[in-house]
């Protein structure tokens, strides 16, 4: 029987199939953990006196509550610094420092590899997995974090779990799962200039809604998807959860293999050839049946921007805010945002611009931002915060001169971390202020109490930071202004 990519991965990881009475026992190849959702699971494990079954399949990093502020060189550390500080900065919030210390202690006690505060490989959990080559096609990958869907870009079945399930994976390397349904998202056509993977996924969420994917694994297919780089594919899969989906998937191909070749944790030598031969089988069969599907014409898409308090409240940047009749939810969201139905989004003033997160904090995203910011200055009164997704992204951006472009433009260039995506580390937007942001959630208070978030691509965030108002980035791009590929120098602006 023809099967989908999802079916193939599922079948290969089924320790025991589901029955009417019990869910399937699904084997997990890679378990990523971070400081926020692991402490309770470790405490549970200790209370049961159990070891971590496969510490070698577990990787830990610190990203959510860690500081991103670099400290001036040669500043002596205060004697009361809670720990060997990272980038020279102690963690200001005591509870956050405690989380970080607990993860250090737990990783040590259970024999788990940790990319700790001082590690050059540290970064946002969904950025470092791929960067290290730990994320590979055909794997099952879980993490106590909803954006685990990012790893689906490699043709891995990757999804977020809660802390109790983190405990299940610690103890058994397995999860109890009912089989989700499959949803084909067919995207064809060439993305127009200035329209990015972020705009694509925002328009998909706009179409199917924030619960349109509930119960499904989305498989993104079609020639638009095949032509995307790995970093763009990660942006798309990352936000699958924003449509309610369990996971997002993209079949691995030569682009995937080129990305993984030579990565430190990818198969090496003769193992590489064998792995690629296997990975090539990981595609949905031609006649495979999906439970549902949608077709998107990429050539018709435009830069997108959210105007409300969930990612489904989104319009093309040149459009005005819709006016649904008698929709109290819509009214409430607009009241929070301080907007009116019918308002144009272009020209709305912003206070903060945030470029970063596991959605758009990789090198290509920073290159895209730099292509707009090069030789320009941000508007007076705007705070542009640029936070690389990992320490490796930071080093690469600095080596390519992107950091210099950012600093000359007046941006605040930071150490890696989740930062203003959720404001747990103290990087927050003040109440009532508008933040144009490349992150993934515009929920009430997500970036700080009372903060108002507008989700966009790195192009749009950079262009808007320059003008101080919501700006169509196409006005600032060169004629060939599309997202630069890996390793290409930033584009020349006008």
């Amino acid at each position, binding site marked *: 029987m023809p099967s989908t990519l999802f079916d193939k991965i599922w079948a290969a990881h089924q320790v025991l199939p589901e029955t009417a009475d019990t869910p399937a026992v699904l084997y997990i190849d890679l378990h990523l953990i971070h400081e926020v959702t692991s402490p309770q699971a470790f405490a549970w494990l200790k209370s049961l006196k159990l070891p971590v079954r496969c510490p070698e399949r577990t990787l830990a990093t610190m990203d959510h509550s860690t500081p991103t502020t670099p400290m001036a060189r040669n500043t002596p550390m205060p004697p009361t610094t809670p720990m060997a500080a990272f980038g020279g900065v102690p963690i200001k919030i005591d509870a956050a420092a405690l989380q970080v210390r607990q993860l250090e202690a737990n990783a040590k006690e259970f024999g788990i590899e940790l990319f700790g505060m001082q590690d050059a490989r540290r970064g946002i959990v969904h950025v470092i997995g791929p960067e290290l080559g730990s994320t590979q096609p055909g794997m099952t990958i879980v993490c106590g974090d909803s954006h685990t869907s990012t790893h689906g870009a490699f043709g891995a079945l990757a999804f*977020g779990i809660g802390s109790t399930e983190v405990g299940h994976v610690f103890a058994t390397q397995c999860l109890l799962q009912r089989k989700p349904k499959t949803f084909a998202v067919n995207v064809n056509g060439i993305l127009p200039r200035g329209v990015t993977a972020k705009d694509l996924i925002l328009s998909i969420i706009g179409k199917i809604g924030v619960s349109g994917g509930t119960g499904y694994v989305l498989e993104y297919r079609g020639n638009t998807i095949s032509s995307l780089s790995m970093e763009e594919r990660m942006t798309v899969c990352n936000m699958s959860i924003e449509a309610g989906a369990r996971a997002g998937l993209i079949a691995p191909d030569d682009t995937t293999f080129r990305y993984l070749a030579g990565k430190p944790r990818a198969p090496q030598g003769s193992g590489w050839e064998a792995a690629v031969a296997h990975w090539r089988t990981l595609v949905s069969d031609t006649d495979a049946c999906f439970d549902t599907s949608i077709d998107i014409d990429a050539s018709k898409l435009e830069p997108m921007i959210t105007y409300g308090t969930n990612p489904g409240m989104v319009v093309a940047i040149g459009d005005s805010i819709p006016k649904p009749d008698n929709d109290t939810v819509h009214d409430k969201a607009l009241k929070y945002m301080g907007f009116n139905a019918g308002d144009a989004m272009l020209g709305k003033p912003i206070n903060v611009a945030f470029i970063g997160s596991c959605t758009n904090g990789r090198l290509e995203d920073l290159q895209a931002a730099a292509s707009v910011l090069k030789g320009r200055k941000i508007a007076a009164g705007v705070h542009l915060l640029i936070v690389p997704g990992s320490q490796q992204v930071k080093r690469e951006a600095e080596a390519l001169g992107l950091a210099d472009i950012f600093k000359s433009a007046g941006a605040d260039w930071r150490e890696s971390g989740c930062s203003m995506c959720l404001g747990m580390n103290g990087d927050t937007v003040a109440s009532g202020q508008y933040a144009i942001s490349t992150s993934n959630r515009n929920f009430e208070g997500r970036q700080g109490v009372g903060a108002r978030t507008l989700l966009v691509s790195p192009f749009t965030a950079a262009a808007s930071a320059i003008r101080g108002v919501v700006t169509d980035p196409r006005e600032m791009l060169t004629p060939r202004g599309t997202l630069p590929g890996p390793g290409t120098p930033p584009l020349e602006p006008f």
Partner: protein
Amino acid sequence: MEPLLRVRSTTVVIASSNIDTDQIIPARFLTTTTKVGLGKQLFADWRYTANGTPNPDFILNKPEAIGCEVLVAGRNIGCGSSREHAPWALLDYGFKAVISTEIADIFKNNSLKNGLVPVVVDAPTHEWLIAHPGAKVEIDLHTTRLTLPTGVSVAFPLEAFARHCLINGVDELGFLRSKIADIERYEIARAAV
């Protein structure tokens, strides 16, 4: 976990649609390393004013909310972050069940693992519940039915194994650990390929 056979209580209604887990418990409270005491921060940004005093207009600060164990939410609750702190906060506050038209996957799973019953109902039942805050309802886990004070009773979906665990007060880890021999066999078979 204590066995849970039924929840019988008056309801609290929060009619907002798409209540995400950032609303249920904002990220700044996630620096905790335990599960306890999160009820105080439940719906913090709606429940308290900027200076930390209770917002008198918010339902959880009204006398009729005291002792209610069933939360009726607007359409689609629990989207967003996978934080299990969301069901921990709801339970710590005293809720035992959440009713909506749709409940996001991860939040639903997290709720079931902690003894918070996710109840998905059809639109007419939901509309009735939204229009009748404080209604006395019964949620029966044996029959998987929700009964309204009007006598109307509707079935709600509850995954068979999760129901078994709730009713018997057992956690899923015990079941998973009973399959260790199968897990070992799987690992050996895979390593041999």
